[in-house]
C-alpha cells in the first residue's frame, strides 16, 4: 500500500466551521448598509417621495380641500404658467431677490469675518453682537423690520426725515419693496456667512502667514496667496447654500410684503403659497414648485461644474 493510497486526501473537503470569522465577514458586508440605512429611509420618505408626489401633482387639477380628488390635466398647468406674465414676473423677482441677497450677504459676511479675524480689544463681544441676528427668530425679524419700515411711524422714516427726505413707503412703494426685503434678509443671514468663513480663516496655519511675512509680502499679496485659496472653497459652498436658501425663502418676504407691493416681491415660493392656499389650486402650485426645483438644480449643477473645473486646474 503506497503512501498515496494509505493517506487519502480529503476529496471534497468540508470547509472547517469558522463561525466567528464568517459572521465578521458578513457584518463587514452589511454594516455599511445598516449605517446608511436610516439616512436612506429618511431621504426616501421625506425627500424623494414628496418630490415625486409633488411632480405628479403638478400634472393634475387638485383642490386644496380634496387633495385626493385631483384630475389629470397633462401639461396644462405648465403651459398656463409658461404663457402667463405673472409667472415671469415671479421668476424675475426670485432671481433678483436671490442675487441681491446672496451678493450682499456673502460680501458683508466674508468682509466681517476678515475683520473679526484680526486681534483687537472687545473682539469676542463684537462677534457675539454680529452673530445676534442669526439667533433672532425669522418671524420676529420680519415684525421688527415691518415696524422699522412703517411709513407713518417707522424709525427709518424718522432717520431719513432728519436728512430732509420726506416719508417713504418702504413696504408699499414698488420702488423700495424689494430693497426692504433684501435688506432684512441680509441682516438675518449674513452672520451665518461670517461664522462659516471665520471658522475657515481660523483653520489657516499661522506658519503660512509667517512665511509670507518673511518673504516680504504685503497684506494684499498675503490675502491672494494664503487667505483666499484657503477660504475660497468655503465661500463657494456658503454661496451655494445661500443661493438655494434664498430661492426657497418665504417667511421674511411674506410677512413683510405678502409678495407686494404690486407683486414686486412675489417670488416663486410666495406664488406657490398663493396658488396652494389662497387660490386652493394644488396642481398649479406644484407646477410652480417643480419649476423652482429646476432653478435650484441649475444652481447646483453650475456649482459642481465650477468645482470640477477648479479641481482639474489644481490637478
Amino acid at each position, binding site marked *: 500500500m503506497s503512501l498515496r493510497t494509505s493517506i487519502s486526501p480529503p476529496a471534497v473537503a468540508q470547509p472547517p466551521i469558522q463561525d466567528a470569522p464568517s459572521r465578521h465577514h458578513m457584518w463587514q458586508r452589511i454594516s455599511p448598509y445598516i449605517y446608511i440605512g436610516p439616512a436612506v429611509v429618511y431621504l426616501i420618505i421625506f425627500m424623494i417621495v414628496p418630490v415625486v408626489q409633488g411632480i405628479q401633482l403638478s400634472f393634475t387639477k387638485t*383642490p*386644496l*380641500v*380634496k*387633495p385626493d*380628488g385631483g384630475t389629470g390635466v397633462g401639461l396644462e398647468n405648465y403651459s398656463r404658467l409658461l404663457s*402667463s406674465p*405673472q409667472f415671469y414676473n415671479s421668476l424675475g423677482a426670485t432671481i433678483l431677490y436671490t442675487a441681491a441677497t446672496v451678493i450682499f450677504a456673502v460680501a458683508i459676511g466674508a468682509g466681517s469675518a476678515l475683520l473679526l479675524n484680526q486681534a483687537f480689544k472687545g473682539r469676542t463681544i463684537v462677534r457675539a453682537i454680529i452673530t445676534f441676528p442669526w439667533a433672532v427668530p425669522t418671524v420676529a425679524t420680519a415684525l421688527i423690520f415691518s415696524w422699522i*419700515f*412703517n*411709513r*407713518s*411711524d*417707522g424709525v427709518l422714516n424718522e432717520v431719513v426725515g432728519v436728512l430732509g427726505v420726506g416719508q417713504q*413707503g*418702504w*413696504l*408699499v*412703494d*414698488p420702488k423700495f419693496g424689494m430693497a426692504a426685503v433684501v435688506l432684512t434678509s441680509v441682516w438675518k443671514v449674513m452672520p451665518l456667512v461670517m461664522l462659516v468663513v471665520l471658522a475657515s480663516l481660523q483653520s489657516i496655519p499661522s506658519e503660512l502667514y509667517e512665511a509670507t511675512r518673511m518673504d516680504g509680502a504685503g497684506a494684499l499679496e498675503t490675502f491672494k496667496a494664503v487667505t483666499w485659496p484657503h477660504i475660497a472653497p468655503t465661500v463657494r459652498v456658503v454661496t451655494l447654500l445661500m443661493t438655494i436658501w434664498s430661492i426657497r425663502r418665504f417667511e421674511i418676504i411674506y*410677512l*413683510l*410684503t*405678502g*409678495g*407686494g*407691493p*404690486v*407683486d414686486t416681491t412675489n417670488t416663486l415660493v410666495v406664488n406657490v403659497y*398663493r396658488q396652494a*392656499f*389662497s*387660490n*386652493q*389650486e394644488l396642481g398649479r402650485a406644484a407646477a410652480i414648485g417643480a419649476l423652482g426645483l429646476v432653478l435650484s438644480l441649475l444652481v447646483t449643477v453650475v456649482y459642481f461644474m465650477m468645482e470640477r473645473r477648479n479641481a482639474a486646474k489644481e490637478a
Partner: protein
Amino acid sequence: MIDRRTFLGAAAASMVLAGCGATPGNDPNRAASAGGTLKFGSWQWLEPGRGEAMWKAIQAYQKVNPSAVLAQSTTPFLSFADKLNTELGGKGGPDVFVVQDVNFYPLADAGILAPLSSVISSHKGTPFNHTNKSGLVNGVQYGITWERLNWNFFWNRKIMDKAGVTPPTNVTELISAASQIRSATGLDGFGVRHQMTEFDSWFMDFDVWTYGHGGSWSDGSRPTIDSAENIAGVKAFGEIYRSGAMPIGDDASTMRTKFREGRLGMMIDVSSTVAGILRSSKALTSADIGFAERIPLPKPSAHQEIVLAVNGYGKNKNLAVDFVGWVGSDEGQAALRAAMGPSTLATDVPLAPDYAAANPWAKAFIDLASESRSPLIRGYEAQTKAIMREVMTQVERYLVDGGDAAKALATAQTQVTQLLG
C-alpha cells in the same frame, strides 16, 4: 401545533382587525345623546374678553346635553383658514368650527361638510333670519350664521370736535374732514385697510367702496370687474388714499390701536372692532364714538359673515349637528347675544336693553345686515379669493403708481377671464 411565526401573525392580524372595528366610542355616527368630546375650532377664542365670553356662553349647551364636552381648537386668525383647509383635506380637523363665508363656500362645495338640513327642519322658536342663506350651498344647508359683521363708518367725537369738522356724508366730505383733522390736530384723519399684506381681509373691506357705488364683481355668468360702478369705487378709494390724511402703511391692527388711543379720527371697520376698541380703551368710552346710519356712499355696503359648520369627517357628527341646533335655538342665541355684542346673529335676537342703551352705535351696525352684501362673487363663489387676488393686485398698482382706475380694472378683467379659463 401552532408555531411561533403563525402565532405572532395571528396576534398582529387580530390587533389590526380590533383597531379597524367600530367600537361604540369611535363610531362617528353614534347618537348625540351618547355624548363625547366636541372640538370647536375658532380663532375667536384668542380675542381678549370676547373670546372668553363666547366660550362661556356656549358652555350652556352642556346643561342640555350633560354628556357632551366642548374643547377648544384654537388657531390665530391669519393662519386659521390655511390650517383648517389642510386638516380637512387630510380628513381631520375639529368637529365643529366657525369660518368666514369666503372660506366656507369652497368647503361646502367640495362636499366635505356635514349637511345641517335636520337643524333647519327641527328648528323651533324664533325663526332663522335671512343671513343663514350664506350657509346654503348647492341647495343644501351646510352652515348657520355664527355672526354677521357689518362694515360701518364711525369716528372719535373728541377729535372731530377739536378739528371743528362735522360728520361727512359723502366721499368728498370724508376727504375734506380727514384732511382737516390732519391739519388741525396733526393726527391721522381716516383709517381703513389698504395693502396686500392684509389681502385676506382687505379684499372684503374693499367691497365697501365698490358695492357702495353699486358695483359687483360678476353678473352671475361672467366677471364684471371693469364695470363703471367698480371703477367709481376704485377712484373714490384712490382719492382718499392719496389725500395725505390716511396712515399709509399701517395695518388694521395698528390703525385700531391708534383709534383706541385717540390718535385716529375716523374709520370704516366692522362692528366687533368698535366693541374691541371700547373694551380695551382708556381714552374712549362708548359716548365718544360717533357713528353713521350707513357708510357715506350711495349704495348699501358689505359684510363679513362667519358661518358655523360641522366637519363631515368628524368623529362625532351627530353630536356636532345637535350642538349647532342648540346654537340656533332661542336659548343658544340668547346666550351668545350677550357675548357677541353688536353682531347680527342667526336669529333676530335683540340686544340686551342695558347693552343697547350703553352702546347706541351697536344697533346701527346690526341694522345694516338687512341690505349688506356678501364678498362672495355670484356664480364664482368658490373662486372668490383667486379672482380678488387679481383684482386687488391691480387696485394696489393703481393706488401706488397712480394712473387710470379704468385701465387697472380692465387689466384685472383680462386676467380674471384668463384665470377662469
